[in-house]
């Protein structure tokens, strides 16, 4: 009977030791991705791709051009059903392609996708974009042996090897899910362009092959009175669209609400609304992002709309 308190004491000591070790582990836990801000992404697919490309860029940064041989010898590690790794020089010459080795050595600077976008040029330009820390570009590609276009979103890192060579390391997601960050980047870029170039930026923004338009996403521009400078729907000026009065499927006025918030000293705002899903016609949540900018001293708004990540099930 006297053994019971001793057994209890041992149990308490054992549990305390276990939790002490656990808390040491927790407090001492560090990730090699601490320099990489992944908090802006919502999907695992996107985070995994950024980490995958970042890891490859570290290999090149450390081992230089010798790293290329490592990638060639371990090609299977850099191809998955969802994404693969590629490396270009800054002139658009493909140096390594895990998924399509036959492209290696070719200059793909002028290669165009089905809508006329030039992925290599877009990616190299994105590397210089401060609004776009992981140099995202969106285009369509294809899968080896298949004949239909595959939508892609790719991220890139610029690497200077120990030999002094500048390279672009990238990887693209097949059939990507839309991240809010993707539209944040293009809207902020469009607002910046308007600030710098004024009216002449509008034609570039409305150009279907520019970075400001991809898949179902389209950057649009309007004045505080709701007058459209670049339309979110029709390209024709004859369409009489009163954005501020537009309602979603529940009767909610997202533009009106967003503008009210922008008038309260905010530069940008996110607004949620309900719309019909393109294929299934069920209601899905969408997200509107608006940023304030100026043309010739007049306040205007730049925006885009994307699908909001849906809960599973």
């Amino acid at each position, binding site marked *: 009977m006297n053994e019971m308190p001793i057994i209890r004491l041992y149990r308490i000591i054992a549990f305390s030791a276990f939790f002490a070790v656990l808390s040491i582990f*927790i*407090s001492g836990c560090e990730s090699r991705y601490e320099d990489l801000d992944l908090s802006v992404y919502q999907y695992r697919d996107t985070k995994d791709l950024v980490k995958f490309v970042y890891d490859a860029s570290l290999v090149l940064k450390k081992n230089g051009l010798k790293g290329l041989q490592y990638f060639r010898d371990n090609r299977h590690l850099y191809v998955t059903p969802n994404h693969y790794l590629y490396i270009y020089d800054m002139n658009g010459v493909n140096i390594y392609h895990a998924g399509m080795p036959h492209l290696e050595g070719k200059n793909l600077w002028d290669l165009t996708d089905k809508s006329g976008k030039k992925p290599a040029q877009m990616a190299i330009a994105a590397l210089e974009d401060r609004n776009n820390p992981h140099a995202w570009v969106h285009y369509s590609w294809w899968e080896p042996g298949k004949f239909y276009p595959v939508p892609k979103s790719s991220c890139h890192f610029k690497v200077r090897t120990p030999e002094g060579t500048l390279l672009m390391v990238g990887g693209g997601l097949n059939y990507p899910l839309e991240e809010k960050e993707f539209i944040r980047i293009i809207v902020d870029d469009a607002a910046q362009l308007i600030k710098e170039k004024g009216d002449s930026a509008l034609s570039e923004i409305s150009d279907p092959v520019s970075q400001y338009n991809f898949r179902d996403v389209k950057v649009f521009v309007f004045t505080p009175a709701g007058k459209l400078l670049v339309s979110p729907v029709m390209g024709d000026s004859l369409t009489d669209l009163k954005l501020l009065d537009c309602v979603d499927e529940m009767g909610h006025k997202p533009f009106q609400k967003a503008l009210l918030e922008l008038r309260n000293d905010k530069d940008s705002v996110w*607004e*949620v609304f*309900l719309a019909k899903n393109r294929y299934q016609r069920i209601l899905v949540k969408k997200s509107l992002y608006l940023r304030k900018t100026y043309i010739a001293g007049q306040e205007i708004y730049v925006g885009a709309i994307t699908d909001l990540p849906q*809960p*599973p099930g």
Partner: protein
Amino acid sequence: MNAGQKKYEYSVNEVPPLAHLLLSGFQHVLIMVVAIGIPVIFAGQMNETPQFTATLVTFSMLASGIGSIIQALRLPYLGSGYLCPNLCGPSYISLTLSAAWIGGLPLMRGITIVAGVVEMLLAPVVQKLKSVFPIYVVGLVVAMVGISIISISITSFFGLTLQGDAIRSIDILIGAVSLLIMVFCNLWGKGFVKIYCLIIGIFLGWILALILNPEYWINLVMVKNTPLFALPQFNTIFKPITLHLNLLIPLIVIAVGSTLKTFGNLLAAQKFSEPELDKVNYIPIRNGIVADGIATALSGLLGAMAVDTSSSNIGLAGATKVLSRWISVVAGAIFIVLAFFPMLTNALALIPKPVLGASLIFVGCFMICAGLEQMLSEHWDSCKTFVIGIAIIFGLSTSFLPPLYARSPKIIQTFFTDPLPTTTILAVILNQIFGLDKSYKKIRDKFKTQKIFATNTENGGK
């Protein structure tokens, strides 16, 4: 009596020893924390501030805690007196979100209060349902309550947070190991191990997840940045409450669906708590729906998400045979206390999804099988085959084919929303239609008996 043959570990009115009471209450809280994600998702979709999110979570936990307590206390005309805790249910989330977009927090509060009132008004009707809910339909409803958690349990088991996102093999392994631990503890464990199989499975699964996946470590480390104690912004309680007539019709439809779900949950709770009953006792069920309505209205007053009875917790009670209603009181009290300790709540909310998925599958098994057992316990005939078969086929189709219902006529869209209410409504209607011949025979026999009785009386009189 052998432990394996025991009907209960703790029966519905038994008060377990303090340690068991606390540990069992905590075991139920571990299931209830799954629902903390709902106000967080809601606030995220509203692009609200972290402060608003924290307040919404706190008030939702308070409403759930109070709801759990009044449901179990068995006050006069209030509360079923079963172990049937409350949590933020997904039933109202779409409507609440729409209300919040259109009219902000005042409208969200308004519709939540009205939903609670509608539920309370529907409660007395339940007592009149004796003839429309034969035992085999009750069994179907109980089974459907279990089936209704399939979606959330499987997506959680695979570690999925967002639709269409990547699934990791490591998460499947963590989920499978956790589930097996729970099942083995329940099958082969005795005493402590059997009663606390869920806690054991959750904590061992959590430790495994921390070892195998660094992401879970990193998330847990972030908890240290959360304050240990925090008070919510009570000023929201004094803000105005509004209503929007356009939302009343969808609100009533959803409130009816939610009442049916609560009805199903309470039937399941009764089945586990009082298996000796040969027919449904509708009084505790009516009182339970009133309590649920009050909890929903209270959540509206507080400015919280609408709360609902929890199918998973009833499944856990059935699985462990620990059915004491006082455990619900303790779980509610723990939930209320946790509401003021964001660090602890956040830590519990970080239980890996595959582990939570495993626990939901574990409790779902008991719900589904208890319902099927009850359903098939009666003599079976072709009429029942068609009632159950058609109701299940159409009910489950709402989950399998949502795009089909999105294109269907408005009247179909209104009633074919979700497997549980759709199956229940169809089963009740079909049972009446297919049983018309029996009803006719009953009326005819009754009429004949009355006629014979009248003739005999007349002859006797002569």
